[in-house]
């Protein structure tokens, strides 16, 4: 009686293992195929343009000039602007929602609303940006360039579709990522640590900033890095707002471009070497997001080791 049932469950286990293994192979295989296909498509451009592609500042497809540096800079600049703008309020909201400042139902509601931000499709953010953020940015930019025109960041004519418009909307888009992950790591800080701080005469703020935040640091770092990765890869809203220019400029109010927006804008009408160059650009983008995630993983491991034994 017992032997067959053991056999049966062993067979079932085998079947289950095979299914799981197949799923793993499938995922890894698809990833490898995507990578191979991009590499294959980018190869002609890589052979022809070499590393000059990465340092070139001209992107003039009909003359066969492909320099991706302005888009690399645009990608980094928009992501950093977004992170700078989203991190302080994102963390503040996370702290607010993880402490008992508000009654629990209100906190749940605020949390739900913030996480709802993540559910809005990118194109809707883009539309909202066009109708609301772009005009505001234009007004503010004109004002700033009239008064602080000597400062490179505000120099030149102010456009609505610009680096800062894209950065602002990106900030809103990555805010829920930061808040959600930071909040859950703050909530996971053992209650004993709070008590320990209070028992030594700490005020609530001293406990939060001196004890709870340091203990939640790995999660906050992870939140930041995931948000940065998301901002770098975000395509639709950025393509709608950034102005899609390949001109390098210091001005926050000048049109710019990112790797993702370049791909979205030009792929439809590209031909010949341009297609290959765009695939080369997408390799660069993949390299960037990969590097960010790898760096994040390293930082996370380091900070986790430092705070190991806390939980």
């Amino acid at each position: 009686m017992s032997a067959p049932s053991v056999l049966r469950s062993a067979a079932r286990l085998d079947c289950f293992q095979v299914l799981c293994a197949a799923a793993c192979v499938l995922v890894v295989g698809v990833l490898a195929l995507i990578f191979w296909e991009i590499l294959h498509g980018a190869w002609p451009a890589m052979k022809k343009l070499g590393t000059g592609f990465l340092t070139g500042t001209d992107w003039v497809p009909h003359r066969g000039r492909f320099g991706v540096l302005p888009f690399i800079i645009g990608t980094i600049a928009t992501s950093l602007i977004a992170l700078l703008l989203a991190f302080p309020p994102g963390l503040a909201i996370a702290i607010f929602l993880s402490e008992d400042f508000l009654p629990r139902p209100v906190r749940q509601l605020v949390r739900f609303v913030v996480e709802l931000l993540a559910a809005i499709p990118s194109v809707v953010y883009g539309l909202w940006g066009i109708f609301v953020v772009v005009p505001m940015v234009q007004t503010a930019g004109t004002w700033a360039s009239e008064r602080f025109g000597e400062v490179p960041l505000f120099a030149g004519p102010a456009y609505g579709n610009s680096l800062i418009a894209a950065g602002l909307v990106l900030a809103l888009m990555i805010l829920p990522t930061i808040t959600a992950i930071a909040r859950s790591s703050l909530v996971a800080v053992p209650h004993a640590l709070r008590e320990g701080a209070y028992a030594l005469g700490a005020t609530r703020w001293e406990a939060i900033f001196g004890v709870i935040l340091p203990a939640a640091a790995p999660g906050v770092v992870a939140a930041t890095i995931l948000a940065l990765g998301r901002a770098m890869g975000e395509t639709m809203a950025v393509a709608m707002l950034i102005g899609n220019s390949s001109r390098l400029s210091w001005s926050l109010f000048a049109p710019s471009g990112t790797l993702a927006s370049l791909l979205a804008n030009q792929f439809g009408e590209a031909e010949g070497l341009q297609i290959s160059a765009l695939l080369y650009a997408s390799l660069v983008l993949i390299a960037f997001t990969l590097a960010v995630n790898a760096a994040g993983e390293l930082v996370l491991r380091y900070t986790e080791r430092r705070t190991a034994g806390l939980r």
Partner: protein
Amino acid sequence: MTTDAAPTEAVTAPPAPGAPDIIRVRDFNFFYGANQVLKGINLDIPEKRVTGFIGPSGCGKSTLLRSFNRMNDLIDGARHTGDIRLAGRSIYSADLEVIALRRLVGMVFQKSNPFAKTIYENVVYGLRIAGVRDRDTLDEAVERSLRGAALWNEVKDRLNDSALGLSGGQMQRLCIARAIANRPKILLMDEPCSALDPIATMRIEELIGELKSEYTIVLVTHNMQQATRCSDFTAFFYLGDLVEFGKTNVLFTNPTEKRTEDYITGRFG
């Protein structure tokens, strides 16, 4: 030491011989919502002695301990009636800030809770939040406190390492060092050894014996051997009542209450 006109004379607390009282609990009732967990407690805790609180789980001993530094304030729906006086002054009086109270009444918890900081920063945390910036003062406090907690020799060469790399017993002694860095008058210990192995427990118990020359210690323990080893006085709580309080050797050898005798002889609990 001021003597107050207590509202009522202590019902269950006998005079504590040999030492003046530092904590006086008077008609203290404590509630979590509708649930009364302490019933009319009257108790005088003598200065620079170890007073053990024993009793089965849920008897209220930890609640009373956590009332002394008002840690129960953090719990929703907690309220009390009656009074607790510390060196003659009500801990609930408006002119005694809860932060000042907690600096006066240090606490060591059941599970050690070092912060995600270096050993050094853990010890000086209380001083830093009190605004002490002077490096020499901090250095001096670290050595004094770690020596006081019998940890100095083990960690003096790695003060800037993370506190989270210490062993369980070392972490608990670090938490004691952190508490005494504030120079409190009273140390509350809430089952400080319950998560430790016998050797680490023995070290903490030895330390308690040394610390009582400087501090008044209130020790909650589940372990009756520990109470007999460590405490000069013992209070036995049962279902929210203070059943019996007296010198440890008297309470354990010749209890006056039947419930005390039943508990210490292991008939329940």
